[in-house]
């Protein structure tokens, strides 16, 4: 199937540290279509960011993509030269990071940082680049962008900075934006604003979005599809409705169970026992089996990926019962 915008097959990304090999991304497969919003959830250290960096070709040493393939618009990315990577980044795919305080260079003005993003890919005049930057800032809801663009990052609040980062990502009209927990550091009200802007943008431009987060509730509101990561693997993926209402993997189930909310007020929350394992020298087999209530001896093998329906996959020997449900119509 070559119609996917992004098609990741069996991606492996390892960090070769002194303590041992960290298998941060351990054979994941994932697709994203045009205009689709994919939520990537998982606990800290499960490999979400590394997945994003792998797509961008930004895995820092001692890390390296060790195997698999990433196709973007049917073009294999992993065999690209440095120059091709440079042209690809920020042009076709943009990435936004978690901490808005750190992503902008504190000593350069916003305009410098935006204009250079355009001029790295296109030969346009400074004035033209400036005009487009102002436009992009306006798009993400920054008031009086013509003036504000002359500011330094520290003159903006966290939410504003994140908007600037998003606007910078939008400058070259990418087909895909990878947003790595862009609202985690922000207040609820500001998070709401950013989510709303992103939603509007995606609808308007038909841009695809990978939204990385550990917050299931955000995914619930924003994404159409969700992929759940655990210890470098995608253990379950499918349409949001489906996964949240009918989790198949015990981990997903546990995760949903541990979200506090009114429904279970005063009661004990569901508690996944134990802690996330170290990714160094992870024992073979299902990585979740040490914490899994359903684990049996078969789990000593790596579980296969079972496909239930188009895009509805789980990686477990003991999945929950699948109630075939019609996938929700995508809101568009």
């Amino acid at each position: 199937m070559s119609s996917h915008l992004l098609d990741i097959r069996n991606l492996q990304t390892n960090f070769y540290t002194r303590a041992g090999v960290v298998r941060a991304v351990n054979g994941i497969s994932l697709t994203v279509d045009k205009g689709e919003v994919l939520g990537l959830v998982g606990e800290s250290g499960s490999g979400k960011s590394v997945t994003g960096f792998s797509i961008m070709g930004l895995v820092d040493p001692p890390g390296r993509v060790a195997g698999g393939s990433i196709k973007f618009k049917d073009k294999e990315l992993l065999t690209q030269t440095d120059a091709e990577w440079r042209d690809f980044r920020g042009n076709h795919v943009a990435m936004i990071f978690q901490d808005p305080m750190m992503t902008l260079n504190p000593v350069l003005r916003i305009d410098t940082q935006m204009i250079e993003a355009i001029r790295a890919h296109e030969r346009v005049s400074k004035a033209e680049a400036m005009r487009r930057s102002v436009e992009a800032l306006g798009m993400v809801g920054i008031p009086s962008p013509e003036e504000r663009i002359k500011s330094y990052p520290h003159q903006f609040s966290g939410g504003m900075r994140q908007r600037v980062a998003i606007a910078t990502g939008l400058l070259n009209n990418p087909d895909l934006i990878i947003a790595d927990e862009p609202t985690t550091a922000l207040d609820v009200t500001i998070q709401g604003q950013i989510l709303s802007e992103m939603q509007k943008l995606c609808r308007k431009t038909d841009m695809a979005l990978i939204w990385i987060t550990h917050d299931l509730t955000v995914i619930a509101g924003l994404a159409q599809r969700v992929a759940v990561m655990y210890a470098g693997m995608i253990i379950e993926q499918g349409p949001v409705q489906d996964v949240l209402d009918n989790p198949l993997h015990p981990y997903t189930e546990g995760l949903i169970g541990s979200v506090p909310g009114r429904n279970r007020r005063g009661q004990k929350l569901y508690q996944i026992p134990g802690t996330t394992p170290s990714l160094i020298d992870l024992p073979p087999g299902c990585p979740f089996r040490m914490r899994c209530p359903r684990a049996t001896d078969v789990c000593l093998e790596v579980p296969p990926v079972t496909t239930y329906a188009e895009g509805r996959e789980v990686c477990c020997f003991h999945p929950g019962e699948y109630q075939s449900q019609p996938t929700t119509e995508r809101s568009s």
Partner: protein
Amino acid sequence: MTDAATPFVRCENISRVFEKKLDFAGKMARSLGSNVREERVQAVDSVNLRIMPGEVVSLVGESGCGKSTLGRMICGILAQSEGKIFYKGKDVATMSVAEKLDYAINVQMIFQDPFASLNPRKRVRKIIGEAPLFHGLTTASELDEYLDGVMNQCGLDPSYKNRYPHQFSGGQRQRIGIARAMAVQPECLVCDESVAALDVSIQAQILNLFMELRENLNLTCLFISHDLGVVEHISDRIAVMYLGRIVESAPVDDLFDAPFHPYTQALLNEVPRLDKRGVDFSPLVGEIPSPLDPPTGCHFHPRCAHAMEICKQEVPQRREVAPGRWACCHLNG
């Protein structure tokens, strides 16, 4: 001695101002026409709050609105600039030294950052055991036993006593922080964003631990958080803060069912929920104003959909809008 009618802690119009005064040079510069000014942050602005024994009160609000400051004043690690704090009905300011110590020990704080809140150079034994030993809650010879008890209570393996904090995971560290507070047998915990830095699964563990402790020991809690989901789950009563003021306080169900203050309404509207799928986000507009330069009148008026002329001029008074529910809003006037 705590009868049900006396609040465990009661704050009466307490305020806290952080000021940076101008020094000699600054004053001189100002008289020469420079625009330097004294920086004055009213972090907490005449807040009234009562926490009944055994109650869990939550404090929610956006970043910088003064939640931590209020919490720290209640804990006694920060002095208030104005107002009074009553502990079990007694004004803290007029207490004797022994009573003050009793108060200080009885109200303990749990912190946000599981990394920064533990002294990296001390073993767990010392971290947890220092204070009970110092305050004579146990003796050096019985310390080990005492620690075992406390650590078990907080879900920590007592055999980890001789480890250093960096040898634990985030969740375990947070448990150590809780154990440290519990070791002095407090009656009240002030939890300042104590689960904010944790992963969901770990957060669930810690929240469960809180609830367990609370039930078993009948602890009183002030729970500071900006995560409404957590707050909803754990608390009896909620106080919503906006820029140093409590704008609304109500029992949890009432508040979630029928938020009164426009800010509370907006806030609740923002909360993403598992059961809200594919929503259209319709956010609260505007930035959080700078506490250095707060808006006049009702602090919320620039972002409020219902703002009236009076909101710009007058600070709305606290009124009981329903039994057990207070709010500060002119809509109510």
